[in-house]
């Protein structure tokens, strides 16, 4: 049975991230980090999930996640990424980017490196700068890329005090999220529905490719790349639509899937099981999309009583897709165009701001100040 544990934590959670497990180890995820927003004092916190197997007589309170340590964070935590096992990068609404160190020996967090005013606005006619929120961060050791409301892209190295590369005015609108396509290429999404690919090998301030939603210019809020097929990219928009793109061809999404009723805040392919995708939204829902084609009787996978919906609005030039390396997300066979969607949270209330998946574990955080954890995604 699928168990979801909820814990109220007295702070609105903006980001949740699993700590990566060492490559090649059989360990499952046991620690995650959260960031808070809109509190008078915001925090970056590390949590440990207890052993869910040991249910005590009181009905399993042992399964709750416990706070390991936390540290004050100046401004809202806009994004959070594990740099490696011991280091966490946090993006702040004050425009700074901070690298926190976790000391497992005495369970404390400390500030390792900080780039203040990484993102800022320049006022017309004056030399003074106003800080601009940093909206997204992505790491690929040793590089850290940040984007912000100022439309700027920064490339940092963990050991460099100054930015290695800065693209000013990379975007005329707000950049909402960033991810690596293939190092040294990155993907950004912005508030006018565009997906831009930047290549750090190229000089100059122009993207190497622009893809966009046609017509409505619906802002895109999140982006994730397929872990194995690097040309397959998923984005989530303000209208709650999920778009699947093939960045090798066309400038339009391969398919648009009607999803949530409000802003989709995050989308994640499952890192090791990429036929599964997870999305969360301002409307308070958290969805599991299952596009695996080899599951004839999938309903048994999930807890009964939860609704499953079939919908797939495929648009576009699918004839162009190379048949040889079809991902299930780019599939053109109508018989296979079935994605099963399961809602993972029992009753929706306030916005689910963030989610992360690793192995069989999922964690998400909400504006209702609750953190939900499950360790049996595919039970």
């Amino acid at each position: 049975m699928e168990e979801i544990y909820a814990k109220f934590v007295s702070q609105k959670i903006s980001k949740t991230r699993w700590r990566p497990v060492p490559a090649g180890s059989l360990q499952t995820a046991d620690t995650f980090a959260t960031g808070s927003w809109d509190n008078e004092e915001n925090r970056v916190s590390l949590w440990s999930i207890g052993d869910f197997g040991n249910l005590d007589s009181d009905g399993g309170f042992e399964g709750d996640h416990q706070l390991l340590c936390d540290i004050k964070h100046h401004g809202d935590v806009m994004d959070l990424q594990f740099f490696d096992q011991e280091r966490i990068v946090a993006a702040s609404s004050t425009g700074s980017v901070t690298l926190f160190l976790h000391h497992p020996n005495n369970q404390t967090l400390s500030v390792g490196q900080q780039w203040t005013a990484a993102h800022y606005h320049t006022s017309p006619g004056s030399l003074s700068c106003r800080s601009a929120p940093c909206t997204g961060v992505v790491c690929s050791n040793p590089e850290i890329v940040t984007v912000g409301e100022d439309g700027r892209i920064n490339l940092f190295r963990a050991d460099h005090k100054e930015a290695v590369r800065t693209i000013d005015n990379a975007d005329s609108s707000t950049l909402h999220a960033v991810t690596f396509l293939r190092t040294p290429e990155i993907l950004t999404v912005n508030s006018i529905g565009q997906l831009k690919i930047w290549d750090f090998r190229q000089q100059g301030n122009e993207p190497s490719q622009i893809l966009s939603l046609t017509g409505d210019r619906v802002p895109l809020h999140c982006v994730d790349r397929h872990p194995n097929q690097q040309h397959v990219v998923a984005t989530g928009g303000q209208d709650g639509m999920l778009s699947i793109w093939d960045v090798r061809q066309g400038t339009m999404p391969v398919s648009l899937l009607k999803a949530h009723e409000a802003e989709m805040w995050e989308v994640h392919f499952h890192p090791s099981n990429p036929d599964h995708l997870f999305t969360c939204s301002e409307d308070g829902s958290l969805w599991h999309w299952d596009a695996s084609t080899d599951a004839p009787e999938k309903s048994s996978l999930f807890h009964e009583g939860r609704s499953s919906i079939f919908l797939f609005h495929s648009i576009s030039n699918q004839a162009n897709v190379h048949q040889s390396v079809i991902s299930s997300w780019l599939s053109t066979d109508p018989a296979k165009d079935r994605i099963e969607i399961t809602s993972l949270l029992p009753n929706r209330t306030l916005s689910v701001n963030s989610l992360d998946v690793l192995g069989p574990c999922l964690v998400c955080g909400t504006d209702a100040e609750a953190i939900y954890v499950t360790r049996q995604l595919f039970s």
Partner: protein
Amino acid sequence: MNMLSAVQLIPGVNSSKKQMCFDWGPGEMLVCETSFNKKEKSETVPGCPVIYIIRKDVDVYSQILRKLFNESHGIFVGLQRIEEELTGKSRKAQLVRVSKNYRSVIRACMEEMHQVAIAAKDPACSRQFSSQVSILSAMELIWNLCEILFIEVAPAGPLLLHLLDWVRLHVCEVDNLLADVLGSENPRKHESFWKLVTILVLQGRLDEARQMLSKEADSSPTSAGMCRILGDLMRTMPVLSPGTTQTLTELELKWQHWHEECERHLQDGTFASSPHLESLCKIMLGDEAALLEQKELLNNWYHFLVTRLLYSHPTVKPIDLHFYAQSSLDLFLGGESSPEPLDNILMAAFEFDIHQVIKECSIALSNWWFVAHLTDLLDHCKLLQSHNLYFGSNMREFLLLEYASGLFAHHSLWQLGVDYFDYCPELGRVSLELHIERIPLSTEQKALKVLRICEQRQMTEQVRSICKILAMKAVRNNRLGSALSWSIRAKDAAFATLVSDRFLRDYCERGCFSDLDLIDNLGPAMMLSDRLTFLGKYREFHRLYGEKRFVDAASLLLSLMTSQIAPRSFWMTLLTDALPLLEQKQVIFSAEQTYELMRCLEDLTSGRPVHGEPDAQRLQDDDIETTKVEMLRLALARNLARAIIKEGSLEGS
């Protein structure tokens, strides 16, 4: 609500020395010292540079209570969605379940607060948490009683069972004592043995009491007989078991027999040799004097009430409750002390006076959470229809509005308040409109969340205002692209015009466009304002020109002027842009188009106002302008000539 006129002193403020001024906010009050002095003018003393923010609802700021607010918010929203069609039993069962959910949240909160109180190192801090624990405990006590009386509406018989559960839940020291005694080496010799047995009997936990007695019987042969008799009495006491079809009359009859048997034993002096057993027997007979002897173990009058009912009126009717409650309170206090607020609240509940309960709670408790949620639940039980306040709307809505306003005053709990306002049909909407505009928009993400709230509720005025704020911010930060996006989202034509003008001005200054990614992708949004359309089209002209599609570019340029989309101030720039097209080798503008261009130029030059006192700068400007006009005239004339020849020769051929 009747407010008690208690004077609250604001720490740090001395109003006898300085004159104060204040201003009311939605949930807070601002107080600061004025520079006026009461008696003499002493300019030397500088004013205190402090503004005090005085908050009404302090509990909102407690970290632990935040969990209560958040968790109960979910229950509240669920309750509002309960199908109205649900009637009768299923509806009642639903409402009872909701009530229990609320209580379990209170309990969870209380337990955590208790843990924190124990762990606190600072005694003052610990005291504060402990007092919170007792407030939460009182809240749960009241809520539970209201649940039994108003929501469950238990009839005679089950009513007493519910009340017993209520007392057992709230007088829970006995469980610790039980574990303590049973854990000791020889429970019978434990100093609290008899105390424990008495408490068990007082709470009607007769099975456990019997087991304790059997321990006594095992170890002391002299009292074994007595213990067995009393144990039998305990075992045979008739109780209502929920599953059976037993009628109340049958129960009353059996109970009467049992009662008489107890009485006979007492009169026969069966337990005369053991004062402990005798007193237990007296309790089981409902003897008031014997009960009052156990005042300390009973803790409070409502425990006394329930024990008394258990052993003398087990089938008490709801309607008679208040009579027994009042007499129990009087007997228990015995005129030594006066009832406290909690006693009054419980008494009002026993009298089935809901409004009095809510009124007393509003006065006694330090937050609106309790009364707002309880009143809302009771309203769903359709118990409050008749009551309308002479101000605002009904009581439920009044309390919900107060609570939600408190949430909105909080830095981050405002999101919860939205749903409460939603379920206030009369004044919720206006309150939300007033509050939502005051949310500081620190990041775009937060603004998007606020916007979503407004858009879902069709609050167009607020949507416009938020977008405008963001557009203004973007302009101030020199982010014209963002500013334009926001004004398009707000459908704010005036602001779109303003931003477009800024784009055009920048173009005139720099000779190139910024933010092409946005302007090239305006799409239908271009139609929002004439100036924006012009901006988009003008940029299109540049693109066509860049792609060497001169004919298309030329006709677009001309149409911008003839259709009056281009602002007059920009015509000269457009005409200048036409110059290179006029100078191309092949003829691009037809004769007719050239006439149009000439007309535009003449319109522009003839309409020029005559300047008053020309200064040096203006003279120079005028000079450049005159040269431009002359160059244009020349180019136009030459183009016209070429066009006429070309068109003439085309027709001729």
